[in-house]
Every structure is written in structure tokens, then in C-alpha cells.
């Protein structure tokens, strides 16, 4: 077993190493070949290869010395306008020495930039197109302002299909000499739903226990948003105890670091398994969807999910009423 983080160790180094997102990769390869890259937006869910594709593209373009021509900024850490005005601008306006006349700026998690910063970025992109090309990586392209979108070539990254996800993890397991049991692989996919970075981290953490990686181990290490916990929280809510349900929710989020989106996904699954009248399932699916959408809009996880719990308390109470 090796002693670094596998998600980095097995990150593809060249575009040709990337096995999925075929159409996107073909286009990027053609950019590398023609040695010209437009401004790009890589949009898609986490762990689908956006940053990897950007890094591979720059490697293919500049070779081993790629670091001199590339800057990687993370908008979640540096999301303000000052960063655009100073760091980004300074980098963008200085000409590159070498065969390729432009440098590349990778702006990761760009949807977390404030709109002020995005406005400032728009000008910078325009003015320094000759010397710098931008690749913006984002989960939601809708959060990138229109003027920037219209200046960029859009690329949509999708979750890895199941077969490729499995192939990838099996290869890593083999190289690291980890025994990966079939139901363990199912569990990883269930928990990470195609987010490859999470899947690899999950595999590594599970492997650290030095036992064959099976479903039980996978669920025991991935936060505590195990189906059982979510189910218990739902039952508590439907039986009318809001405060206790909220307490369970808080523990899941704060103590165990489970993401709100995971919990809501699990709630959605559990809802359809629940022993409640069929009409209610579809009514509540709407409530869940609405809260899911609000979460996407960047609201507070616990507040949103507990609003959903309150809705479930109400539903549980109405279902129990004799009609």
C-alpha cells in the first residue's frame, strides 16, 4: 500500500489517460493539438473530472514545465473582488515566454465567486485574451454570470457511468492490493453516486481498516448518513417529535460532517419505501424537491432540512387523523 492520497496518486496525468467524458476529451485533445484554447467553462457535479481535465490539458499543451504557464486559483478560498483585481490580473497580463503565446488560469469552484468578482473577471478576460485563457470549473454554470458564459466554450461533465466507476475503483484496488468485495463496490456507488473523488477517498479510508472492503465497512465509515439513521430521523418526524428529529439532523451534519445533499437524497429514497399512503408520497416528493432546490441556491443545510422535517411532522399528523 502506498502512503499518499489515492485520489491524487491516480489522477490522470494526460488527456489520453482519461477514460470517460469521451466527447469532451476529444475536443480538448484537438485544442492541445492546434495549440489554441478558448476560454472554457467546465460545468458538472463534483468528482467528475473537471479539474483533472483542465490540468491534463495544460500538461498536454506545455509539457513537463506546465507549472510555469498555469495558475490554479480556488474561488472558494479566494472569492472576493480583490483577488480578481490583483492576483488574477497580474498573472493574466504578463506575456508568456515560449511557443504558446498565452498562459492558462484555472479558476476552480468558480460558482463560489461573488458576482462583483465575476464582473471584474469579465473585463479581465476580455482585455487579456491574447496573453491568458481562462478555464472556469463550476458545479452549477447557472451561477456564472451571463456575460462570462457567453465568452466561454461550455463543457458539461456528467457523473461517471456505473461500469466506468467500477472499472476505475477495481483498478486502484488491484494496484493497492485491497480486496474489494462486490457489495462493497455497490455501497461505494450508493454513497458517492458517481463522484469519483469521494469514491476513491471512501475506498482508501475503508482499506485503512486492513479488512476486505465490504458494504458494512463502507457504510460504517461514510459519515453516518446511513440509511438506518435517516430512516430513524424520518420516523421520529412522522411520529410528531420535531425537536428530537432536529437533534438527530444536527448530529449528522455537525458531528459527522454529512452533506445536506446526501441526507436529502437519502430522505427521498426512504420516502418511497415508507409505510404511508401512496398519494402522500408524491405530495412529499414535491416538498423534498423544493428544499433540495433551496439547498442548491446556497442556503443553510440545517435550516432547510429542518423545514422539511417540520413538513413531515405535519404530514405525519394529518395521515394519522381519521378521515
Amino acid at each position: 500500500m502506498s502512503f499518499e492520497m489515492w485520489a491524487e496518486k491516480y489522477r490522470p496525468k494526460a488527456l489520453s489517460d482519461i477514460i470517460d467524458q469521451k466527447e469532451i476529451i476529444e475536443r480538448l485533445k484537438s485544442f492541445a493539438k492546434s495549440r489554441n484554447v478558448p476560454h472554457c467553462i467546465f460545468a458538472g457535479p463534483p468528482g467528475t473530472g473537471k479539474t483533472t481535465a483542465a490540468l491534463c490539458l495544460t500538461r498536454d499543451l506545455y509539457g513537463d514545465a506546465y507549472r510555469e504557464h498555469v495558475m490554479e486559483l480556488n474561488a472558494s478560498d479566494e472569492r472576493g473582488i480583490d483577488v480578481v483585481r490583483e492576483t488574477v490580473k497580474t498573472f493574466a497580463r504578463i506575456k508568456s515566454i515560449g511557443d504558446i503565446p498565452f498562459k492558462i488560469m484555472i479558476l476552480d469552484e468558480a460558482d463560489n465567486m461573488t458576482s462583483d468578482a465575476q464582473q471584474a473577471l469579465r473585463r479581465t478576460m476580455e482585455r487579456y485574451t491574447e496573453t491568458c485563457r481562462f478555464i472556469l470549473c463550476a458545479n452549477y454554470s447557472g451561477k456564472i454570470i451571463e456575460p462570462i458564459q457567453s465568452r466561454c466554450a461550455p463543457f458539461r461533465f456528467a457523473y461517471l457511468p456505473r461500469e466506468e466507476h467500477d472499472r476505475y475503483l477495481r483498478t486502484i484496488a488491484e494496484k493497492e492490493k485491497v480486496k474489494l468485495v462486490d457489495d462493497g463496490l455497490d455501497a461505494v456507488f450508493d454513497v458517492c453516486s458517481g463522484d469519483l473523488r469521494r469514491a476513491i477517498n471512501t475506498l482508501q479510508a475503508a482499506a485503512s481498516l486492513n479488512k476486505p472492503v465490504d458494504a458494512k465497512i463502507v457504510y460504517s465509515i461514510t459519515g453516518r448518513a446511513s440509511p438506518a439513521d435517516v430512516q430513524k430521523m424520518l420516523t421520529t418526524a412522522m411520529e410528531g417529535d420535531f425537536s428530537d428529529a432536529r437533534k438527530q439532523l444536527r448530529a449528522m451534519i455537525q458531528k459527522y460532517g454529512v452533506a445536506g445533499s446526501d441526507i436529502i437524497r437519502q430522505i427521498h429514497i426512504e420516502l418511497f419505501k415508507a409505510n404511508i399512503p401512496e398519494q402522500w408520497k408524491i405530495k412529499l416528493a414535491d416538498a423534498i424537491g423544493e428544499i433540495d432546490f433551496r439547498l442548491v441556491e446556497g442556503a443553510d443545510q440545517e435550516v432547510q432540512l429542518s423545514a422539511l422535517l417540520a413538513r413531515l411532522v405535519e404530514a405525519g399528523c394529518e395521515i394519522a387523523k381519521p378521515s
Partner: protein
Amino acid sequence: MRVLYTAWTVKYKPKSLNEIVGNKEAIQSLVDWVESWENNVPKKRAVFLYGPPGIGKTVSVETLANDLGMEFVEKNASDYRTEDAINRFAGLASQYGSLFGGKRIILLDELDGLTGSSDRGGVRAITEVVKSAQCPIVLIANSAYDPRFSNLRVYCLLIEFKKPPAGEIAKLLKHICDREDVKADEEALRFIAQRSGGDVRSALNDLQTLAQGKSSLKYEDVSWLGYRDRQETIFNVLRLILYGKTCISAKQAVDMADVDIDMLFEWIYENVPAHLTDPHDLATAMDALSIADVYRGRIRAVQDWSLMRYVIDYMTAGVAMARQNTKVHGWIPFKFPGRIQMLSRSKADRAMQLNIGQKIRRRNHISAVRASKEILPYLKIIFKNNASMAAGIAKWLDLDAEMVEYLAESEKCSAEIAELLSQDEK
């Protein structure tokens, strides 16, 4: 199980004059004056008690009547606006002895509550009654020197009630804690007493909120009270919001709060479930908070703070209007926001997480914020279970000893990892 509490301000209301905290001199002058009625009608037929709220003016009169076995008649601000009421009360005031032979004392409370032109007539009418009173009349207001009372004042004996010293309030709090089986730190009680600024009633309310149902009360449990100001306590603000009848009144409460909007949001978010118990009301109120929160997210995204008005609309009026079916009964204590308590406890925690996040970021092409949330939990598992893998990662990420200790969570694991790291250096 839902427990209905009685307010401690009611439960521990003094029954006798000697139980009242502070103001010994003022109370003595009051007693002397009432007793002087035994001989004949004194020159001043009314006393005017004045002083800040919550220091025992009303209760002094009540317990005095009780101690001296007098018939106690109380009128408050809302009563004596109508001419009718004043006449009826004029009748009562015209004789010292009551129908059943006892002696009577009349209290007119909350004189500050008389406002507007219609009440100016009210003060005049009261003045007339005082002039010819045949039994002791006690007037109470926060300030006796309001111009409206200038004429009335002439006919009254003025007695000032002062804020009792914090030490005496702390003593009272101690006494109550003993009765409630709460082991309280002296330091904690002194803190509550000092913060109350002499307002015994609010000190009691604070104590109940903090201590009810607990077996002990430590300084840490109360120190957060420092967050708020005395002027308009957060509890009053919450009451106005959770029990608001109109949108305007609920919204106005925000101006009275001296905490910032996010903190107020936490207070409301924490207390909605206990105060809006009907499932439909609760769902509506929580939905209002959810929408308020969405607007907060939008403000963050577009940095347009003018949207704050919608946050306020939903978190105050939206919550107040949710009350449809929930009945109001009993006294339900307000709770300090649990998430803030967790946050302040884990402040050092979060700093550490972010520092580790920075280390991860250097290696992993992911933001420090996200790394600290998404990757750190996995590291914890690895550091707890597999020392050699952990040591490798610690080296690769360049983690310091403190970080290793944090991730390993136990001394045994972190020692094992440190051992491997030092071997590696050799």
C-alpha cells in the same frame, strides 16, 4: 413530554415585606406613612412610588397590604381611562374602612401608561380623587417628574425606589437555586445579577431560562449573556416575534434587538418549535425561516444587502403569522441557540480543520474549505485505524504534530503515528 412551567417571578414573589430585596428605607417610609392613617388623615393623602422597572415597587404595596391585613384594591393603566371607572374608584377612595370593617389601600399602577390627550383628563380626575381621599392611595410610575404629573405631584408624598445592589440580587438567586435543587456557581449568579442592572424581575427570568430543569449552573452556561444588552432583552424581542399579532409589530422587534440579524435568526430558529407546537403552524413557521435563509444565500451570492428586508420579513412576520392553531398557555422558557453554543465550543476545532484543509489543498486541487469538509472526515478514519498509512499521508501533506493529534483523536494512535514519522526521519 411537555412540562408547563410557572414563571419563577410568580413562584418566588415575596409574600411579606421583609422578603423584598433592597430598598429598606423606602419601604420603611411607606410603612410609616400607611400607619399614620391610624391616627388621622395625613397631610399627603397619596404616596407616589417611582423608580426603574423590576425593582419591587408593586410587590412592596401588595405585601404591605398583606402584612397589615388590609383590603387591597388595584387598578392598572387600562382601567382608569374611562370616566366610569374613575367614578367607581372615587367611591372606593371616599371611605377608609371597607364594607367588612377592614382597612383599605388603593394602588394605581403603571401611571406611565397614561398617554395622549384623553388621558390628560384621567390624570386630572385622579388628582381630584387624591385631594379628597379618605384612605391611603399609592401611585406608581417609573418617573415622578414627568410634566404630566406636575400638579398631581403636589398632593403626594414622593418615595424613590432604587436599584438594589447586585450582591443582594445574587443572594436571592442563590436562595431560589437552593429551592429548585440547582447547584449554582457563585460566579454565575453574580454574573446574572450584575447583568440585570438592578432589575430583579429580569434577573429571575434570566435565571429561569438558564437553570430550569438543570442540576447545575456553571459560569460557562451564563457567560453568553454578555452577548446581549439590557435595554431590550432578547427575550422580549423573541416574544414580540413569536407571539406577534401583526406583521408590523413582529418586524419592528428587529430594531429593538441589539444582536445582529444572523444571531437573531438563530434565536428564532431555536425557539420556534417550543412555541409553535401545532404541526401546521410549525411547518409554516419553519418554511418562513427556510425562505428567509434562501434570501440570505442570495445576498451572499450577489452581495446585494438591500435584499435583507426580505430576510427580516420572513424571519419575523413570516414566523408570527404562522400562529393559527397553537394555543398559548403556561410559561415556556426561551432557549439559547444550540448551534451557537456548539459553534463557540468548536471554534478552535474549526480553525484546526481549516488549517488542515490548507495543507490538503496544496496537494489535492481542492479548496481548503471543501477539503476540510469533504476530505478531512476520511483522514480521521485513516488516522484512527492505520498508523502506517496515516504516517505516509501526514508526511505527504506535511502535517504538523498537532494536526496529527487532532486527526488521530486519541493519544495512543497519534503516538504510534509520531513514532513511525520519527523512524522515517532517521
